[in-house]
């Protein structure tokens, strides 16, 4: 499978489009700041990776996630030359938290909100005239899981092109429940560091236009090709990850892609900065890659974007495509002393590295033990 990716879009705390985000990442510029929508007095932690789009600090508004999604989809569609009328294209959206932040505001403050706004199809139809849209709520691996479904649709001949997107805005319930068990909130998100103290949430959205490989296309530019996506389920614990099925997702991705670990030039980590995720992820990676674990350069975006939940995997994939286009690999900032399990890995630290990337592996793992791994190749 070699599905052309012909347009990308993204929005995050560190940039309003994919180029701005990549520029920030390469410069080591993170988006962590004082939280703008939630009351500081109610929480231990008061810093998040938010997109600064609220009318005034301290006052929240509804439908922010929907806005981020429309922005990212609009960017990708325009870049791919599809325009604003997307009635012929399926749009598949992966999300962890849907528009649940608006539901919170509705219940707590009585602001207007309807059940038809919980999923994203309503807004997508209004803006782009779509009729075949799907919202998948698959926690933090949502957008890569969704990418697999989009790829399968093309392989089955059900569409000539699909738009795959991921989006999340932080909910107070998710942030609050994490805050409840963190009397000392993590001062930074430090992927793979021995002193990592946990994850910090972020807002974000990403979108790609994916096409069938056997039909000629025009418009947009070839960013890369999707080779395969693996997806598994731990079926073990509602929140803690399991090495066995994480490793299996990596193996499955390579089976789908027809590639071997030694082919990979770049690994984009899920790297949430929680003690357990980073341990399990590094261990599973080393388990599968064995003596090839030192071949790819290894990085991740979350120390600078925060954990953008359902959008995180696709955002990482967009960044991987940009490393292919530029030869620049953003660093894992805040990584001072890597964990033992990451010894021997070619970690990109402190500042951007120069590296020619032909094949990249992208990780996304989520609550419920749902794991997705994608492999993309350079044009």
């Amino acid at each position, binding site marked *: 499978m070699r599905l052309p990716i012909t347009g990308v879009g993204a929005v995050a705390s560190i940039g309003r489009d994919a180029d701005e985000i990549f520029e920030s990442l390469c410069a080591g510029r993170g988006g962590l700041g004082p939280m703008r929508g939630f009351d500081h007095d109610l*929480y231990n932690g008061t810093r998040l990776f938010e997109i600064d789009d609220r009318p005034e600090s301290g006052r929240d508004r509804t439908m922010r996630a929907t806005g981020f999604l429309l922005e990212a989809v609009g960017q990708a569609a325009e870049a791919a030359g599809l325009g604003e009328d997307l009635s012929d294209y399926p749009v598949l959206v992966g999300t962890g938290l849907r528009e649940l932040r608006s539901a919170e505001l509705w219940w707590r403050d009585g602001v207007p909100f309807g059940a038809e706004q919980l999923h994203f199809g309503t807004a997508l139809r209004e803006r782009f005239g779509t009729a075949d849209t*799907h919202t998948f709520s698959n926690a933090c691996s949502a957008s890569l899981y969704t990418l697999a479904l989009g790829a399968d649709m093309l392989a089955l001949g059900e569409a000539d092109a699909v738009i795959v997107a991921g989006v999340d805005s932080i909910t107070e319930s998710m942030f609050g*429940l994490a805050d*409840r068990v963190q009397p000392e909130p993590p001062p930074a998100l430090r992927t793979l560091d021995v002193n990592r103290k946990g994850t910090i949430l972020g807002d974000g959205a990403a979108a790609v236009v994916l096409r069938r490989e056997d039909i000629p296309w025009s418009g947009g530019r070839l960013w890369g090709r999707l080779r395969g996506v693996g997806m598994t389920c731990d079926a073990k614990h509602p929140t803690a990850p399991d090495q066995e099925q994480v490793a299996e997702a990596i193996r499955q991705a390579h089976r789908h892609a027809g590639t071997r670990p030694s082919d990979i030039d770049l690994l984009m980590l899920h790297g949430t900065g929680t003690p357990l995720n980073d341990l399990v992820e590094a261990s599973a990676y080393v388990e599968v890659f064995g003596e090839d674990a030192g071949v790819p350069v290894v990085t991740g975006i979350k120390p600078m974007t925060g954990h953008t939940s359902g959008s995180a995997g696709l955002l990482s994939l967009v960044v991987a495509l940009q490393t292919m286009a530029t030869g620049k690999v953003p660093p894992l900032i805040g990584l001072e002393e890597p964990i033992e399990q990451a010894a021997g890995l070619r970690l990109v630290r402190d500042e951007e590295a120069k590296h020619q990337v032909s094949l990249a592996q992208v990780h996304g793992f989520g609550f*419920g*033990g749902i794991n997705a791994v994608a492999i993309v190749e350079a044009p």
Partner: protein
Amino acid sequence: MRIFITGVGVALPGADSTAALAAARQPGEPVEPAAVLGKKGLRYKDRATQLGLVAGQRVLTDAGLLSDGELTTDSTRVAVLVSSNLGNVDTVCRVARTIADEGTRGLSPMDTPNASSNIIASEIAIRFKLHGPNLMVCNGPTSGLDAVRWGAALLRSGRADQAVVVGVEPDNEIVRELVGGPVADGGAALVLERADVAEARGATVHAELGGHTRGARVADNFAQLAAGEPDALVGWFAPGTAAGSLPSELSGHDLTETWGELSGALGVVQCAAAIGGFGSRTGGPVFLAAGGDDDDGSAALVLRPAPTASEPVAV
């Protein structure tokens, strides 16, 4: 690839089988998960998850995939798809209110898993040890039929041999206010299976999936699927908003008249009800619609009665 429905589970108030579902005229007593599953492990699970587990247990049992509570098939080849729009809305809203009133000190960490909407799908996987693709579909009015479609897609793409498709919605104060009326407080489940796999293990076939589509207009969807179906459609299932666009000379069913708001459970309950109908009368394929012209899209699916014994299963 032909796809069969080889298991059906029903978990609605007063209806625990397709026959009871087909005969029901009004909801009965609420589903009691502890009576079906035992009390163990249910304490911190939200209502939607408990309902999903009941439907899951019934459907796997009906499909002959459980023996003494253990799965009898390759667990890595079983996908789980759950459709629910309202599943964890109550937890999320309640937690936000508690934070406003008491700060995060007032929260119970036991709510943490339920803050993620995919809790139903992951708990079903955990209970029955299903390692295949695990998908939570929260796609509005069409969600149940969409979940059936994606279940079929996972089989067609070779990612699974069986797909457990569940649709459930809980009833509580918060979701009643959001949708403006009582919610079904239950749902249904299906096992979709590749025809060759079903035949090899001698599974009982309840129905076969026909065509599916998703478009802006119910009438267009009907015309498209009717044209592609070898046999004439003999009936339809559709909610009030879509029923007006369908031929009145065919036998029509609006399940929301009996069960109230079915939301993300609708499409799956429609499949179960149609199968209940196949059992009690001879007939041909039926058309199922979820979502109307005023919604963000309308999903449609044709369900065919099981092939008769004399008909060879061409795979």
